[in-house]
């Protein structure tokens, strides 16, 4: 459906020599899929989206939709933004304040070049688009009088009214308050599966990305560091950056002693050995980190080592407890290094504070410190 190859767009900043943009990004989307570009601010995710929209001209690379080339640096093809036939929702929603809701939504049809739409036809299409986003009857409302959530829906209706091949969403939920954000997240997901439109979504919020996406690309400093399903990204992060950025994790630097069939042993802390998954990408055994998610760790009293030799054990001492409502965060110090553990709020802790951390091999991953 959408194909992006070696997309590069660099912003040189001459004053403080920090360069932004995106380098060598490549990915391809299945029709109807929900694809997310995830990363911290300044990682190049919005640049990538704007290049696809045609709002930025890439330095290099290819962008094609349905086999039609929109941009090709080598062939000097660059289709202007207004001819790309896509829908887009902006971070600010960009609802035109001098138009009513209906005028806003009808705009793509009134400026359409390939054909003229009749008045009744436009009215019908606007009605349909507003119905999809649950804003029936809002046609004549003036745009600035809408709430944040309503503006977001209008922006969405405007993006889908001309039935584009592709819809681009630039952090559409970031301007909403927390409760509305959850609500709109669910709605967006429902909507996307209902109209089945191919979607590219940009966000810095990992929980949004995990909840909404079919596939996620994680960007760091202008480069795509991992593409995969939400489960891949979460359980098998490609490097320490992804592990830390997508969910909380404990990272223990160490040395890979050896591996076979994707399982190996890493020496961490003061000579302790941990069994874990070892991906193919590790080529420097002396510089790895072991990632253990706080919720993958089980706590027991130091003297109650359970029977059976499954998984890993680490002894430690509780240094702090934080009540979080549904769960509880316990900080445990092992060999002078602090680890986070998430437990249920009511689980009893040993009175003396000496605990044993238990975690399964398949929930423990060795990661290369540097990307190859």
């Amino acid at each position, binding site marked *: 459906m959408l194909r992006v190859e070696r997309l590069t767009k660099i912003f040189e900043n001459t004053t403080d020599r920090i360069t932004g943009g995106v380098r060598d990004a490549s990915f391809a989307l299945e029709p109807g899929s929900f694809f997310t570009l995830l990363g911290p601010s300044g990682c190049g995710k919005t640049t990538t989206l704007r290049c696809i*929209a*045609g*709002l930025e001209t890439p330095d290099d690379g290819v962008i094609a939709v349905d086999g039609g080339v929109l941009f090709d640096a080598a062939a*000097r*093809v*660059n*289709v*202007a*933004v*207004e*001819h*790309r*036939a*896509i*829908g*887009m929702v*902006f*971070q*600010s*929603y*960009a*609802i*035109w*304040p*001098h138009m009513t809701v209906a005028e806003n939504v009808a*705009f*793509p049809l009134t*400026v*359409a*070049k390939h054909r003229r739409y009749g008045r009744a036809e436009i009215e019908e299409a606007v009605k349909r688009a507003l119905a999809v986003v649950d804003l029936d009857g809002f046609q004549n409302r003036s*745009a*600035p009088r809408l709430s944040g959530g309503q*503006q977001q829906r209008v*922006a969405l209706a*405007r*993006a889908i009214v*001309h039935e584009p091949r592709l819809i*681009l969403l630039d952090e559409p939920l970031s301007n909403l308050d927390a409760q509305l954000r959850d609500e709109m997240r669910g709605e967006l997901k429902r909507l996307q599966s209902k109209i089945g439109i191919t979607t590219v979504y940009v966000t810095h919020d990992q929980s949004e990305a995990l909840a909404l996406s079919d596939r996620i690309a994680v960007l760091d400093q202008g480069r795509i560091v991992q593409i995969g399903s939400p489960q891949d990204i979460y359980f098998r992060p490609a490097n320490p950056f992804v592990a830390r950025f997508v969910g909380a994790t404990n990272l223990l630097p160490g040395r890979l002693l050896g591996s076979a069939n994707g399982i190996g042993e890493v020496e961490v802390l003061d000579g302790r050995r941990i069994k874990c998954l070892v991906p193919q990408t590790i080529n420097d055994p002396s510089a790895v980190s072991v990632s253990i998610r706080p919720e993958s760790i089980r706590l027991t009293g130091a003297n109650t080592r359970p029977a059976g030799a499954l998984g890993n054990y680490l002894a430690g001492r509780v240094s702090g407890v934080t009540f979080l409502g549904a769960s509880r965060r316990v900080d445990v110090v092992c060999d002078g290094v602090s680890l986070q553990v998430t437990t249920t709020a009511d689980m009893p802790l040993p009175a003396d504070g000496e605990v044993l951390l238990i975690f399964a091999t398949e929930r423990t991953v060795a990661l290369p410190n540097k990307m190859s």
Partner: protein
Amino acid sequence: MTWRARLSARQTTWLAVVLIVVLVALVLPPLILLLRGSVTVSVTHTVSRFGLDHFEAVLQSRHFLASLWRSLVFAAGSAVLALLFGWASAWIVERTNTPLKSLAYLTAIISLGTPYILYVSAWLLFFGKAGPVNHLYRMLTSSSDVLINIYSMHGMILIEGFLWSPLAFLLVGATLRNANPELEEAARVSGAGVWQTLRRVTLRLSLPSIMALAMLVFIRAIEAFEVPALVGLPGRLNVLTTDIYGNMVARVPPDLGGASALSVILLTVVLGLLYAYGRLSRHAERFATITGKGFRPRPFDLGRLRYVAAAILFANFVLLLLVPLAMLIWVSLLPFYQPVSMGAFKVMTLNNFRAVLSPHHIELIVNTLLISTATATIAVALTFLAGWLAVRRMFGGWLVEQLATIPLIFPGLILGIAVMQLFLYLPLPLYGTLGILIWAFVINYLPYGMRYSSSGMLQIHRELEEAAAVCGASPLTRLRRIVAPLLAPALVAGWLFIFLMAARVLSLAVLLSGPRSQPVAVAMFDLWNNGQGTELAAFGLLWSMLMTVIALVFYVVARRSASGALGRA
């Protein structure tokens, strides 16, 4: 690129090219002709050569150094006075709980529409030898001396400072309104009193913007013509602008070369000052206190001192509005000028008002309205496109912005001389018509239009335009359906501002207008010079009333467009 991409790029490229051609044709010829005139020495009537003779003549005369020195003293004094007045009243109005605030606005708004020439005449009548101040002094002391000699450097500074303080008030008020009040509140919470907060936070923060504003008034005062002509010339206090005027008017034939050389020197001075101003104001922005939040800060409670502050506002109102107004009304009712006395009431008449409703005066008013309307419309149309290209950094945007800003270096009088020379060369029969005035006025007000248009553009979130592009709108459709309606308030404000400025300017028009193409300000200047002060007063009062209405509309529109309601969808 495909043909489609080329098509949409072509639209804006063509627009930029056309705009560049128009701006170059407007802005560069006067500059080139002025430079050329200053280095052309005529040998005989038909033969001339290149030479720096004019510059030599100017620089060697002691007269020049005296004028230069007077210009600098005059400008510096006026800037300090205007800022002092303007800043004090702006702070009182914007930040304290003083009563009578509306008086300050009333004063400022009325001053926007009133020709400076009228103000200056009114103050001259008030402070002059036969004015009520000196008259009262003579009556009380029974001497034949004067208390105030207004035809002096002090008098010039006083009047020029008065003239600029309402604008200083409005500009300082805008920066104070945009300043983040939390910075002051933090100081109050930390235990600082009103005066400590004022001295250590407010003043420190607004220092860069105050410096920039002082620089602006300084530049404008160096270029000023009204006060030097009406106050300086009778007192034999020449400054650079009146020297240039003298070269053109007092000599037969006019010494165009000498005037051009002096103009080039003045232009260089202004250019240097503008550069410094640019650096200062950029600095001011870096320390920006602007948050863009639309909330009103809690004003300081001055306690009893607020009556002192109210007295300051009232004095400001009396001096800047009531005195000139009362003086003009008084004079307008007299058959000939005489000092304020009971006896004068007996001869009062409305004849002056009858006289100024003549066809001649109607023609003046029509001329002025035509010039101002055409100037404002053309300048706003050009700068609307220029501002869009520049702010959105499209092809040609940078060049267009530079071109539209160049006229800032022209003092009004000098632009008048330059445009006059231009039409002596060109075969266009515009000399002595309204056309030549409009031509010069458009050049002069391009930078102002640019300022309104680009600051308005900056308030329009670029995503509003990008959204239209993604929807399939071509650049010109975006311009028509998104940018123009959203920018309309700023453009209307800019239009009204240019209209008001063009309707009252004297320096730019004084050398360019012919007998049939006089605007109001020039006619007033002639009336004053001919000693027809009573007619001037009557005419001026009627004219100011009309302009005040327009100024009021401007003020309402400008405030609304500056409040930033647009573009934050």
